[in-house]
């Protein structure tokens, strides 16, 4: 759906050249929710802005549904952009327009006749649950309501892709959850491909199917969340599902990751019984990630001479548990 191929974006400052995005390649599959996680300054905003050519990449190509945006003329680009919706951290609604007229804006721009516009606007307001606020002005709405208007507006011209620029960062936790659920809902109902950037791992954990971790303009890790959770040493796994374990001096420390239905099976107690191992649980967490129950657990196996490491590894691997020592 979206293919980013060796994209670099540099800015010239007075003293030096800054590489905001440094040789990034990634693929977003149709219909998935794709997260770009990173701290501020990691280059994720610049990367997102490259997707709809708010920024022009210095090198590399980006194709969306087979179209290379950089090769389009100005008027072709305007038409192509109508197929990519975007929502923003600060909503960017027009204060001079009512809620209904804000949602109608992209349709006006595209020259949709008035009667058709009002039908579509009514549909969209229904979808985001703001039918009763159609005549209100943005200043009369709460943050969550404003973002709902932003979402309705972004969906107006039937886009295939929705870009979310820190869409929930200005909202409180409860409202964040509602907005994320709405995005997930729309993704499922309409098969919309969603690319979101955020600095909050909670957002990625709650709704993303795939994610990349960005640092200093580079992608340092990427994959499907469900796979990443089971990848030993994955930094995304540690960010999304942190194990707050106290350091220990005794025993061999083992990290276990389990997903799907394994999370419900009593693998550990079997391990203790079948291999005759003693262990201490140091820490762990179980959460729903990408719609699956996923757990990560850190244990210390006491009496290291009482077992063979490879035997433990094999035993757990056979039961679908990914392991890594320490």
């Amino acid at each position: 759906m979206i293919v980013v191929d060796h994209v670099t974006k540099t800015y010239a400052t007075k003293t030096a050249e800054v590489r905001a995005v440094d040789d990034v390649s990634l693929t977003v599959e149709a219909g998935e929710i794709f997260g770009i996680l990173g701290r501020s300054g990691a280059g994720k905003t610049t990367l997102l802005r490259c997707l709809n050519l708010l920024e022009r990449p210095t090198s590399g190509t980006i194709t969306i549904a087979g179209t290379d945006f950089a090769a389009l003329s100005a008027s072709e680009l305007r038409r192509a952009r109508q197929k990519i919706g975007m929502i923003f951290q600060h909503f960017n609604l027009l204060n001079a327009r009512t809620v209904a007229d804000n949602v109608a804006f992209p349709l006006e721009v595209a020259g949709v006749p008035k009667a058709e516009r009002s039908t579509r606007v009514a549909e969209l307001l229904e979808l985001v649950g703001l039918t009763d606020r159609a005549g209100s002005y943005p200043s009369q709405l709460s943050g969550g309501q404003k973002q709902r208007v932003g979402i309705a507006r972004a969906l107006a011209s039937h886009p295939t892709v929705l870009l979310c620029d820190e869409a929930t960062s200005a909202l409180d936790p409860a409202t964040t959850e509602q907005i994320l659920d709405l995005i997930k809902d729309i993704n499922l109902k309409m098969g919309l491909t969603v690319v979101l950037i955020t600095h909050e791992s909670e957002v990625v954990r709650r709704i993303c199917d795939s994610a990349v971790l960005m640092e200093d303009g580079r992608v340092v890790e990427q994959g499907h969340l469900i796979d990443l959770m089971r990848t030993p040493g994955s930094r995304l796994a540690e960010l999304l599902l942190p194990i707050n374990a106290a350091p220990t001096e005794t025993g061999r420390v083992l990290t276990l990751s389990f997903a799907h239905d394994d999370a419900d099976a009593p693998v550990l107690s079997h391990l203790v019984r079948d291999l005759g191992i003693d262990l201490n649980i140091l820490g762990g967490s179980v959460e729903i990630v990408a719609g699956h129950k996923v757990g990560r657990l850190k244990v210390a196996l006491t009496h290291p001479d009482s077992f063979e490491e490879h035997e433990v590894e094999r035993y757990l691997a056979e039961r679908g548990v990914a392991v890594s020592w320490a």
Partner: protein
Amino acid sequence: MKTTWIEALPDLGLAFGETAWMVGWSFVLTVLLGTLAGVALRLTAPDGLTPNRWFYGIFGAVVNLARSLPFLILMIALLSFTRFVVGTAYGPTAAIVPLTVGAIPFFARVVEAALREVAPGKLEAAQVMGASTRQIVTKVLLPESLPGLIAGATLTLVTLIGYSTMAGAIGGGGVGDFAIRYGYQRFNTPVLLMAVVVLIVLVQVIQSLGDAVVRSLNHRR
């Protein structure tokens, strides 16, 4: 024998009509042309939608030059231009030309500043929805900055009334000229005061109306 203020009333009415004529027309022209100029400045500014260093630099310099000339000097400097445009350099209609030329650069900067207040994110949002530059100007920039534009237009109208008092120098007439003729040249203080009161009330009414419109616009946003 001094003219009493009652005897001067018809003359004042005439002068008020001249002021309204000069100021009214030049205000309408200033708003139209000044808005165009202000939009052009905003768009071509280094952080504008269509940056153009040369245009912004040269046009901006012309605007600043026109603004730095005292109005009286501008009026005299424009005499032959005025004659070319209206056919005469004398009278209330002729005064419209220097008034407009003097107010456009002022209003253009006011417009530019008001447009600058529109958050860049709103323009980006419009861009990513596929809006053309023309659509962004008419559907985002101007409507979003309307309260600022109206406040600026009010300021410009008051400034025009101030300028118009100097139009007597080229036979423009008006309330300012009336005040000079009766009060300054004939030492008729009561009539002078009457003219001053008329000017004060006029400016007050305009300012209050402008403020009321801005308030009602801001109220619902």
